[in-house]
Structures are given as C-alpha cells and as structure tokens.
C-alpha cells in the first residue's frame, strides 16, 4: 500500500467512525515508516475535520462524534506509542491542559473538545472531571503548558474558573498561561469578568481560540 493509500485509509476510518479500521490503518502507517505527524495531519485530522464540519452543520450528532473521537484516539495510541514525550511536545502546535472544573462531573463536552484539539495538532493533557483548582494550577506548572482549558456545566461550578485565574494571579504566574473556558452556562461576558483570556462555545470554536491564543503567545 502506498503512503497516500494509508493516509486515505486513516481519514476514512475516522469518517466511518470505525476504531478497528483506524487501529489497522495506524499499524500499517507505523510499518510503512510514515512520520506520525504526517499520519495525523494528512490522515486522521482530515477525517476529523469532515466529522466536525458535519456536526457543526447539524448533519451528524453526538453519538457519531464520540465514535469518531474513539477511533481517532485509538489510532493516536498506535501511532505515538513509542514516541518520547519530548519528541511529541516538539511536534505539537502547543500544550494544553484540559479538565472539567471542581464539583462538576459533566465531561462529555470536554472529551469531545480534547479530541478536536488533538486533531488540531495540539498536545493535550486531560486531568478528567471534578478537578480541584489547586490541582489544575499544580499540573499546569509541572507540565509547563501553554493553555489551561476548563469546562463548567453548572452555575454552581462556574466560580471554579474564576478561582483558577485568582490562584494564578496570587502565585504571580498569571502571564505564564492562557486561560480558555467554556461550558453551557459560561459566556463571553463571564470570561471577561473573571479575567480569563478566551471563551469558546463549541468544540471547533475551542480549536480556533486555542490557535489564536498560541499566535498571541508567539507574538509575545
């Protein structure tokens, strides 16, 4: 199979939301010696773009999106299994810490955003759900991330986003991280009010915002 055929197979596996096919194609990419980054950018991510566009247009729904995400993550494990963290970091668009905020267990949206960010070329560290504010800040420092992304799905848990910004300020490290927040009750007004950097309403919006934030970081 040519490189082009393998890349096409990777793309199709995501579009068909088929984890088995994605694992098979990723295995073939490894054997053929295809650079994992090319496999992602020219294969998997193209499939994810198709899925994301169809979702934004209302032609696809969450269940298919979840299966596509699962296929994507399955292939990623095969492609990057042997690569060191350092090599992965070098290749990424930027490093993002993602979580659902303290007290909040709604993580389906966060999981979709995570996959979309990976598909967009970012290195994503997922802390899971109901993550304490202090833990978010500690992990952000330890992993030297560029962006802290957090989702809150309840009005009672939104204040954790404000607390993250406050702790970063207290520790004098606010300018080391960009804060990108979202979730059903979250609004651009709220994000401005708490002094965070960006708001995203949708998963594809989160990727755009993350890219814009990285451009800001590079401009310095």
């Amino acid at each position, binding site marked *: 199979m040519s490189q082009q055929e393998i890349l096409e197979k990777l793309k199709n596996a995501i579009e068909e939301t088929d984890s088995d096919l994605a694992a098979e194609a990723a295995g073939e990419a490894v054997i053929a010696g295809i650079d994992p980054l090319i496999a992602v950018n020219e294969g998997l991510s193209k499939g994810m773009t198709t899925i994301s566009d169809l979702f934004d247009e*209302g032609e696809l*729904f969450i*269940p298919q999106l*979840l*299966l596509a995400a699962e296929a994507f993550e399955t292939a990623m494990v095969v492609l990057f299994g042997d690569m060191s963290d350092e090599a992965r970091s070098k290749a990424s668009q930027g490093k993002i810490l993602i979580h659902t905020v303290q*007290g909040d*267990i709604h993580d389906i949206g966060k999981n979709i955003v995570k996959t979309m960010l990976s598909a967009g070329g970012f290195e994503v560290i997922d802390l899971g759900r109901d993550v304490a504010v202090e833990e978010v800040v500690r992990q952000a420092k330890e992993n030297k991330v560029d962006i802290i992304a957090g989702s809150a799905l309840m009005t*009672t848990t939104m204040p954790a986003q404000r607390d993250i910004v406050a702790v970063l300020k207290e520790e004098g490290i606010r300018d080391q991280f960009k804060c990108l927040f979202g979730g059903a*009750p979250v609004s651009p007004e*709220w994000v401005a009010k708490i002094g965070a950097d960006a708001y995203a309403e949708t998963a594809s919006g989160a990727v755009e915002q993350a890219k814009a934030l990285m451009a800001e970081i590079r401009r310095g």
Partner: protein
Amino acid sequence: MIGAMTGMDLTSEAQTFGCKVSFSDKEAPHVTDEIVFDRASAESLQVPSIQAGRGPVFVKAAELAAQNITDRPTFGGMLGPFSLAAVLMGIERALKASIKDKQTVHIVLEKCTQYGIAYAKAFKEAGANGVLLAEPTAGLLAPKQCDEFSSRYVKEIVDAVQDEGFFVVLHNCGQTVKLVNSMVSTGAKGYHFGNAVDMVDVISQIPEDYLVFGNIDPARVLNEGTTELVKGTTKALLGKMKPYRHFVLSSGCDLPPEIPIANLESFFEALDEFNKGK
C-alpha cells in the same frame, strides 16, 4: 403562574435502581457511579419497587401540593427513559451503544420505562394534574435515534397515564430543532424547551392543541443577569410568541439555587406588564 411543580432532582430514580449519589449543601446531588456496563449487567438489572428509594418522598410532596394548591394545576417531576438509561450506563457508553449495541440500550430502556410508568401512576394517584418528564439526554441523539431510543418509550408512559385530568409535559432543554417531530410523536400534551433553541423554530412545528413552554436562559439571564435584562429578555420573548396561542412562558430549565429573588419578580412583572399591554 399557571402551574406549580413540586421539586425533583435528577438522581432519585437512578439511586433507586442502585447508583450511588453524592449530596452536598451547595450543589444539586449527582450520581457518582454506573451500574450497567454490558449486555449481562443490562439483563440482570432489577426494576425497583415504586416504594423503594426517595421516590415516595417526591410523590408525598406532589400529594401535599395537590391538597394545598387548589387555584392552579400541580405537576410532579420525573426523569425520562433515555435520560435515566444514560445515567445507569454512563452517558458516553449509552450514546456509543445507541449505534454499536442497540439491544443493550433497549433492554435498559424497557426497565426504565416500566419503572417510569409506575412512578407516573403514583403521581397521578397522589392527585397531581400531570407530570413533567425531563428527557434532556435525548437532545444528544440524531432524530431517528430519538424516535428509537426515547420517543417510543416516552409514548408508552404517556399512553399509560395521560387523560383529560392528567397531562404529560415532555421537557428537553437540548438542541431540539430537528427533534420536534419525534417529541410530538409521543402524544404528550405539552412540550418544554430550553434556551438552546429559538422558540419560533420549535413552536412553529407544533399544532395549537398542544402547549409549548419555554425558554428564558436560567443561567445567563435569570441567574447572572440584571433585573433589567430579565425584564427585557422576557418581554422580547413574549412579543415574539404573540402569534402563538399555545405558548406558555417559562424558564428554559430548572433554576440555580442561588438565583436572585428580584430577578424572578422581574420575570413575573414582565409577564404582568405584557398582559396589560404596557
């Protein structure tokens, strides 16, 4: 106010089925585990007695409300079949299984529906005039899936309890513009929508002999907004709904516990002023 609904939380039914629930002073209770993982655990899942768990407390509240609130209809509240199944299975597992392992989801749904019919009947026997059936998780499904995994089972509940004196109001605060036909296929007398939709888009799809409720944003407007924003938003919605005689003003979902009372007053003032033509 045209109706009074007694309290509900979204964990009572799941807890009765055997899930663990975390309670705190500041938050709504939430389920902390899943109990259906595969076909075998779906098959061995037992439908609990209607006397078990906290269900009887909610039914008692509906009974007291029916006895003491006599100038308007009273409603109980319960979780819809797919939303309950998704809690028992874990939401991601349920959504993935809706494509890859439909049979397992149907096994769970049949049990949720069996319990739901008994629960709705208990509210009816307690004297409530109806029940609000919260089915938000169905908002994540494709329209055909909504027919298959939600509406078909909601219809079973509707058929079992609804009559001239007892209405089912189907609530879905998700993105439902493409799901309206599926929702109406349940035959429920009322449909309640959240702020994810423009009311014009949904109400225009629903015949006038059904009631349509919605949809002031409970978080960004009613909780976070000023009294002016609440009044302005409410009046704007009422204005847009003027051509629709089957519209009933409501919030888009249940209200956060810390909501300012002044904002609720502003909401009702807006309705009053609108009705008086101000």
